[in-house]
Every structure is written in C-alpha cells, then in structure tokens.
C-alpha cells in the first residue's frame, strides 16, 4: 500500500476517503484552469491546470490502488502470495504517486520562474525523480524533495500576497503553506504514525482553502 508502514491501521479506510476527496478537488482546479486558459490563452493557466491534473492523478492512483490492496487482503489466498501481490501493487502505486506529485510541483515551481522553458522542467524532473529511484529510502527522499518545492512555492505565494494584499491571495498562500506543513508531518510519520494523520488533516485544510478560493473566483 502507498502508506504501508506508517499509516495507523485505524486510519487506513479514512485515508482512502481523504485521498479521493483530494483527487476530486484537484481535478476541479485543473478543469477550471483549462477553462481560464481557453478564455485567456495565458500559458501559465495551462501549466497550472496540468500541475493540478497530475496531483489529481497521483491521488486517484493512491486511493484506487489502496482500495485494490484492501480487496486483495480480503481474499482467501495463500498468505505468501497475498503479501507478494500487496507489496508489488503498493510499490507501483507508491512510485506512480510520487512521480505524478513531483511533476505537478515542478510545473507550479516553473510558473514562478522566468524564463519558463522545457529544459528547466526536464532538468528539475531528472534531479528530483532520479534520487527516488537510486536512493536507499525513496519515501523519505520524496518528502524531502517535495517539501523543498513546497517551501519555494509557498514563498512565491507569500510574495504574491504581500504584493496584492487581497484575501484570495492570502487563502492561496496559507493553502500552500499547509501543504508544505503536511509534507513535513509526513517526514516525521515514518517514525510516528500519528503525524501521518495530522498531515492528512493539514492537506485537507489546504485543498479546502484552494476550493474556497476557486468558488470565490467563479462566484458572479
């Protein structure tokens, strides 16, 4: 399972619901970004939409494969075969989730960089994804790298808020700061599973704020 090892057993079912909710909210953000791109032809809007589409895909993969694992565990098959299937399923889900999430974060980072080009994207993708495959602890490496991106992105949104001093910009800054904090909690969850639960609540609060901003933007 994606969270195998540090998700408390009592929270496993709830974590699937959380991840499905994140997948749906991020999908909404992606679709509205594409709508904005269609109307404005602003390149940054399509990059933002693609980033959130990748987030959505990462959460869908995470939740659907966790559901698959639950299903596998409920079957009466040989225990060794079951463990092997669950391990393989979990490993595939884990890597897919991490790669989609990192690519999404790189796209948002790219929005704050000028000039934006494909070479910078490829470079960031390589230096972010390779350590996950080559390192000894892929989960820990992933959270360190994604936290670094989220810190950089939060700083971008802090600057955006200080420049515009609007409620909407504050919401988005707090949302990305909460995402950063949730990632930091996930780092600690490797040793203390309760942090995994706290991280999910931070993540939920973050996506609710992003959704709230979206509602305010599209409210007539």
């Amino acid at each position, binding site marked *: 399972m994606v969270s195998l090892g540090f998700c408390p057993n009592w929270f496993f079912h709830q974590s699937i619901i959380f991840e499905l909710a994140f997948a749906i909210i991020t999908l909404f953000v992606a679709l509205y970004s594409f709508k*904005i791109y269609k*109307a*404005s032809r602003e390149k940054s809007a399509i990059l933002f939409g693609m980033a959130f589409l990748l987030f959505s895909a990462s959460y869908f993969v995470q939740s659907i494969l966790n559901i698959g694992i639950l299903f596998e565990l409920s079957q009466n098959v040989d225990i060794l075969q079951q463990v092997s299937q669950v391990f393989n399923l979990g490993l595939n889900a884990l890597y897919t989730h991490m790669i989609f999430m990192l690519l999404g974060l790189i796209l948002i980072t790219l929005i704050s960089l000028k000039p934006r080009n494909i070479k910078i994207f490829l470079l960031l993708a390589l230096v972010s994804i390779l350590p996950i495959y080559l390192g000894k602890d892929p989960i820990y490496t992933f959270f360190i790298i994604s936290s670094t991106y989220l810190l950089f992105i939060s700083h971008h949104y802090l600057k955006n808020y200080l420049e515009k001093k*609007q409620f909407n910009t504050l919401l988005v800054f707090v949302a990305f700061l909460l995402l950063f904090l949730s990632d930091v909690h996930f780092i600690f969850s490797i040793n203390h599973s309760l942090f995994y639960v706290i991280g999910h609540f931070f993540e939920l609060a973050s996506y609710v704020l992003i959704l709230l901003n979206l509602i305010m933007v599209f409210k007539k």
Partner: protein
Amino acid sequence: MKKRDRLQIIYDILEVIRDKGEKIKPTHILYKSNLSHQMMQQYLDELIGKGFINELRHEKGKTYSLTEKGFNYLSGYTQITKFVESFGLA
C-alpha cells in the same frame, strides 16, 4: 510589466475594438490604449496570435475586428484576473 497591467491593457484594446464595431483603425486603438506604437503593435500581434482579433487589410490600411474568443475574453475578464492574481500566475 506586471500581469495585472498586461491583462488590463488587453481588456482595454479589446473593449475599444468591440465598441467601435467592425472597422477600427490602429491609430484609434493607439489613441484609446495610451501605448507607444511599438507596444501597441506587440499587443495586436499577440491578440491576433491568440485568436482574439482579426486583422483586415484594405487599400487605405488595416482595420481590426473582434473574434468570438475576443468577446469571450471580455465577458470573462473579471474571473480571469481574479484567477490569475490569486493563483500567482503573473
């Protein structure tokens, strides 16, 4: 130039073209948009590239008209600016 300014300039240019109807000359856009000739030409090229306006060439010069995409931009301008500003897409 900041994004807000850029989006506002695009809005102003499209609004002038819409208000003048089908045949607006570049000099009129220049006067209304309060831009240098070079900047105005850059914006017009961008707007043609994005499919927001059409350029029509006549014997007496060029005129511009709004496309459906241009009309859509004007009607969705508030949402576009709010979205771009709040999500830091500048």
